[in-house]
């Protein structure tokens, strides 16, 4: 119940933030730009719109995570509003979980709005066959943003906003490359291979949430993939939030 209240407040705060509104407008502008640039795409304008539209969801979401998520806890510490909350019988893990759920919810809303706009554009172009793939890609983008948000919340609970933004961005980039790392591991000698595979499995496995390549061809992924991604996002976010809680519990605000 407490977690829901915190989540609700965080969601409301994030939705009211001008950054979020600005990025939704930027997303619409990006979609409009793909239409304006379509004569330059040599007949691949639909692909351009779908590709950029889907990438836009992730990138704009990432900007929100970095700008809002990385200062989520630090801002409350600065304003001292956190003392009102933590002086109550409220476990810190619940507080962090609520913060994460609120921001992840706001990001999902942004992803939904942008995906709906993309779907509308594609529909207007007479290509309804793209809608299922756009819906799947947007759902996976929401999961990806939820995982990255958990990292931002973890670092935000432990460090300054600038540092936590840097750490989050670093892990986001490393997570995007973990498939390459795994591919590289197959070529490496035995000991190094095990090490690289371990690192690849420890990093957030973000390519699992990326079906943009097949979505650009109006193809959908398997239900097994969607289920795996969902469970993975829940486990990874849960693990990161619990790590954050363990560290946050020992933090002294005196």
């Amino acid at each position, binding site marked *: 119940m407490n977690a829901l209240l915190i989540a609700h407040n965080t969601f409301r705060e994030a939705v009211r933030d001008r950054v979020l509104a600005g990025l939704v407008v930027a997303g619409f502008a990006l979609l409009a730009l793909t239409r304006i640039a379509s004569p330059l795409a040599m007949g691949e304008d639909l692909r351009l719109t779908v590709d950029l539209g889907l990438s836009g969801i992730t990138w704009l979401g990432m900007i929100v995570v970095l700008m809002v998520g990385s200062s989520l806890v630090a801002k409350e510490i600065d304003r001292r509003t956190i003392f009102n909350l933590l002086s109550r019988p409220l*476990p*810190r*893990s619940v507080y962090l979980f609520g913060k994460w759920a609120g921001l992840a919810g706001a990001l999902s809303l942004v992803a939904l709005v942008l995906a709906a706009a993309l779907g509308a554009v594609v529909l207007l172009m007479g290509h309804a066959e793209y809608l299922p793939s756009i819906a799947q890609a947007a759902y996976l983008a929401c999961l990806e943003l939820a995982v990255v948000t958990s990292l931002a919340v973890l670092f935000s609970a432990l460090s300054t906003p600038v540092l936590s933004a840097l750490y989050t961005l670093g892990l986001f980039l490393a997570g995007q490359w973990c*498939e390459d790392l*795994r591919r590289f591991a197959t070529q490496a000698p035995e000991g190094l291979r095990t090490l690289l*595979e371990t690192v*690849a*499995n*420890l990093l957030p*496995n973000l*390519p*699992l949430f*990326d*079906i943009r*390549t*097949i979505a650009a061809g109006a193809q959908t992924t398997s239900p*097994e*993939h969607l289920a*795996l*991604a969902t*469970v*993975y996002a829940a*486990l*990874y976010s*849960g*693990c*990161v939030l*619990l*790590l954050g*809680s*363990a560290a946050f*519990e*020992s933090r002294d605000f005196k």
Partner: protein
Amino acid sequence: MSTLVWELAPVRRRMLLAWAGAIVLGAAAFQLAAYAARTLPARPPFEELAYYPSGQALRPATLGHAETAADLAWLRAVQYYGEHRRSDLRFLQLEHVFDVLTSLAPGFESPYVFGAFALAQEGRDFEAAERLLRKGIERNPASGRLAFELGFLHYVRPGGRDLHAAAEWFERSTHLPGHPPTAARFAAFARQHSGNLLVALALWNQVRETTDNRFLRDIAEREVLRIQEAIATGRREHAVRRLTTPQVLLLPQ
């Protein structure tokens, strides 16, 4: 064990439980990541390197780090070559990749040489190979190495040597810094077997007089005698050999 945990102070207990939960969930996520990598089909690649930007457009985006970007592009180019050399032997984006790379770092000579020979031999696109090396020479007019390599490209041209062009570039390279020590010999050899005996004679004489290499001097002396005899007897075939046609045999590895 559980009683021990409950006897701890609440903060410590919550911390311990959080750590335990994190480890359990983390281990599950770890296993799931490995399982997903094993079972899910690999993502289909984009049309390979189709989005690789042009070098000129990329240069400003490197914010003054064009050389570093060129190094990364070089790594990618070599990988691209290796991947296709080991698989389908199709090099559709090779010229584009090397064009980007050499636009980023015009003074970086290795990509011109490597790219040109890969294009000519594996890519079977001699015109593109020549274009790349000529671009290098245009950007590095004082490079003896690039001039020599363009001569060598003509010398081993798949499907038919162009000894005249080869000799032209070999000779030019001998006047430039950085040419390999064998450039003069190659120039003389190419001139001789393209049928230009008088120039070949002058070049072999030059090799004989300037080289410190005993074996090379012997070769030069032998060729000078051979050419002089051919000119004196009017039997050109005595000095001019019909060289075999270079062929490239490629097998997937």
